[in-house]
């Protein structure tokens, strides 16, 4: 397996400029001779599809929702980082780069991250020009706020709906190209396989979710921008449809999957209220600025929070991390919550929750101030839980939120399969072992607006790609495989629903490969997943037919892939004998419970090669060389 990252030579700050100069170009008149398939219409996919079409390429864009505007990027709340230094507080591309590398616990590529920081400023300009209504100051200039992991104020936002507004900007640019006939949009269409011809990605097989028709599309390159796989845990903050299918099927065709075990947990979500729970809702972390986290000291204490006197409360974050207190980083706060719940001191139904208490802040600042700061979040909390957080403490619990792992890509965002590009959350490239807040939106848009449009041209101009059509036998073969698999799922008619399997898998992953992992647990999961998968293929009940809108069938295909992918995550987590970022191995921690990295042995990207279901994948290592920054151990004490 060839894992050449193709990092340009030269000093860090000049690599991208230099690379842009050195890359070959496609003559404007020739661009219309190239067809590009873009799967996904989130920030990464929509920005790429629009930008490529503007350049003159013929683009086909696919999404499984009924409209490209509904991609999960729409749900991002907090904001997007950019090193504009509008606040004159000392920000720079270098500082953003450093914060991102450090936030990623020194497990990301320097060159990629530096480029991301450089491009961040262009993103803001682009979005403003599209009419994104970013928050502004009275003077009419753009406003910023600060976000976790940074000492400067560099986050741009549009109320609590930044993802929505950025996505609408990209969606509108995409719509403009659809209207001009340069993009053909296929909504309610799910990609089920990548087609390789002589080792090059040349097209995809899709299922029309309304008619059930399975067909192929050929292109000179295939771009996957299909988002993250947090839903392997069943419950996460992701939308229901988010899946690993697109990238996992590409993995099965030979694309290396990098760092699958790097997943991020968000500490402030609304806890599960029962078995029926279908997703978890995130509450902005900003709440931790004024809320105090606590649980009762006594196990099994079921008194309502107001009746628990001060000395019987354990403000565990303040106790354990006196200098950061309630603002301890995401992973630390999450693990601490799990610990107290594991000790039996969790609150609320099922005991999976901790209090986030605003009573001190309310007596200090008044209800009006709290309302002004967090009114919409308190409203949202009330809508979901029926509780009034001005009167009773909120209950929160960590939930899966983001996946740093994804398909391996080189500096050009191309996977190890020629012609297969991967953007946004679907690739692994920029966040290392942990993503900083407000940097996923930045990465998706950098990939789509400003990186792929250059690198794809270089691919076309320098490698003389093949020009097959859908009549090539490889397409027939892939279609047949997809049809057979679909038929197989429909013919089982077993006794358990798809969701019941998904819940079971999710629970297993949460327990054994969630926010704290260890060798014994991972080995156990590696035993249990294949058994569950076997049962799935014997006992799942997928009703209805293929030739219709069949949501159970859609879900069944996604869960089938999670059933295989979960194993890969566990292999990766087991192999990585250190704790870093979102990956916490209980065996590897400092005396006071901090993650313990092993830079001497684990400073690499883990890229896995597929060999078949029930076969062990092979590990390939891309060493991470740090030329610019010095690795340090973080401390939040």
């Amino acid at each position, binding site marked *: 397996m060839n894992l050449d990252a193709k990092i340009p030579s030269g000093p860090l700050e000049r690599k991208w400029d230099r690379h842009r100069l050195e890359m070959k170009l496609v003559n404007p008149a020739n661009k219309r001779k190239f067809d590009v398939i873009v799967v996904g219409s989130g920030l990464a996919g929509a920005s790429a599809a629009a930008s490529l079409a503007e350049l003159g390429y013929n683009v086909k864009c696919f999404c499984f929702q009924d409209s490209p505007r509904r991609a999960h990027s729409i749900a991002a709340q907090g904001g997007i980082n950019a090193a504009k230094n509008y606040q004159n507080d000392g920000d720079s591309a270098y500082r953003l780069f450093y914060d991102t590398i450090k936030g990623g616990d020194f497990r990301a590529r320097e060159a990629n991250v530096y480029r991301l920081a450089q491009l961040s400023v262009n993103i803001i300009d682009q979005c403003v020009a599209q009419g994104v209504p970013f928050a502004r100051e009275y003077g009419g200039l753009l406003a910023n706020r600060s976000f976790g992991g940074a000492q400067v104020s560099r986050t741009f936002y549009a109320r609590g709906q930044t993802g929505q*507004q950025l996505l609408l900007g990209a969606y509108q640019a995409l719509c403009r190209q659809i209207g001009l006939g340069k993009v053909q949009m296929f909504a309610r269409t799910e990609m089920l396989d990548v087609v390789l011809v002589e080792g090059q990605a040349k097209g995809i097989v899709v299922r029309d979710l309304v008619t059930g028709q399975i067909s192929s599309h050929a292109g000179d390159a295939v771009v996957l921008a299909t988002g993250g796989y947090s839903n392997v845990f069943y419950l996460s903050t992701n939308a229901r449809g988010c899946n690993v299918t697109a990238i996992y099927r590409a993995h099965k065709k030979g694309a290396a999957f990098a760092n699958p075990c790097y997943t991020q947990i968000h500490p402030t979500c609304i806890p599960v209220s029962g078995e029926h729970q279908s997703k978890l809702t995130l509450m902005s972390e900003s709440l931790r600025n004024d809320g105090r986290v606590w649980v009762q000291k006594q196990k099994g204490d079921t008194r309502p929070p107001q009746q628990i006197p001060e000395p019987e409360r354990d403000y565990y974050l303040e106790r354990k991390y006196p200098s950061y207190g309630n603002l301890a980083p995401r992973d630390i706060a999450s693990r601490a919550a799990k610990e107290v719940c594991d000790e039996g001191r969790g609150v609320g139904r099922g005991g999976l929750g901790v209090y986030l208490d605003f009573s001190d802040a309310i007596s200090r600042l008044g209800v009006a101030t709290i309302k002004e700061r967090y009114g919409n979040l308190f409203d949202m909390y009330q809508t979901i839980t029926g509780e009034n957080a001005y009167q009773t403490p909120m209950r929160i619990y960590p939930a899966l939120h983001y996946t740093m792992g994804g398909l391996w890509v080189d500096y050009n965002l191309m996977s190890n399969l020629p012609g297969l590009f991967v953007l946004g959350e679907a690739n692994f490239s920029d966040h290392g072992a942990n993503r900083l807040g407000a940097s996923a939106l930045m990465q998706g848009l950098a990939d789509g607006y400003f990186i792929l449009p250059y690198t794809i041209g270089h691919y076309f101009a320098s490698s003389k790609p093949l020009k097959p059509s859908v009549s090539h036998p490889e397409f027939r073969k892939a279609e047949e495989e997809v049809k057979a698999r679909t038929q197989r799922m429909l013919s089982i008619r077993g006794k358990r629903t798809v969701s019941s399997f998904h819940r079971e898998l999710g629970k297993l992953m949460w327990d054994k490969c969630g926010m704290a992992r260890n060798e014994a647990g991972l080995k156990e999961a590696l035993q249990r997943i294949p058994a569950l998968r076997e049962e799935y293929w014997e006992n799942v009940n997928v009703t209805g037919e293929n030739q219709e809108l069949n949501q159970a069938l859609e879900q069944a295909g996604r869960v089938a892939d999670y059933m295989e992918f979960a194993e890969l995550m566990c292999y990766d987590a087991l192999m990585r004998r250190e704790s870093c970022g979102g990956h916490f191995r209980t065996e590897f921690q400092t005396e006071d419970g901090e993650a313990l990295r092993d830079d001497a042995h684990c400073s690499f990207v883990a890229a896995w090669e597929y060999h078949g279901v029930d076969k062990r994948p092979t590990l390939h290592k891309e060493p991470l060389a740090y030329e610019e920054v010095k690795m340090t151990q973080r401390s939040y004490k």
Partner: protein
Amino acid sequence: MTLTLKVWRQSNAHATGRFVEYQANDVIPDMSFLEMLDVVNEDLTDRGEDPIAFDSDCREGICGMCSLMINGVAHGGQRGTATCQLHMRHFKDGDTIAIEPWRARAFPVIKDLVVDRIAFDRIIEAGGFVSVSTGGTPDGNAIPIPKDDQELAMDAASCIGCGACVAACKNASAMLFVSAKISHLGLLPQGKVEKNRRVLSMVKSMDEAGFGGCTVTGSCEAVCPKEISLDFIAQMNRDYLKALLERE
């Protein structure tokens, strides 16, 4: 609690649909409306029946994918709340709930409660954008924008494209949706440049898709999960007239 559901079942766009009655047992107040339907669907599946098809994705009120007429009201009648954020604590034991798809000529039913809203995308394709391509844009702070304009643009831009406004309107008018986009862009200097062209082509596309006219009764505003204001419709009417005059 136990509820009786009367659900619109229609196997595809061409089939005739009808209401079918189901019992929803063990419904708890903390469930969302869609989670209640999930549970009903699990039961149906266990009994070998076809589960009820309905759209949803984010389940947090932002993607605009969920729909449903609940007892004749789009999104079920909790102010500023999309169906996915509607919780069962607003219902009581023994209630009968009628559940139907959006009904509008421009939104044909695909199956059960799922409708085709592609007409909304077509309207945006016709002009709901600023014609800038990637690259070469001026610095984000090059043009100051009064905070009030930006805030008002943001109010309009919050539309999630769900189509409840159309479903609630007796004429199936899309004016609230269209006017929200026209105001969002028209209020900002970046969007002003193409203001006339935009309103003319979007209104044309809206009419062609088969949406009805607006009689300003306000049923759209009442059900809109983002509480988009009727004022935007008035603004759009002014913009439209102005554009027509200036074209002459």
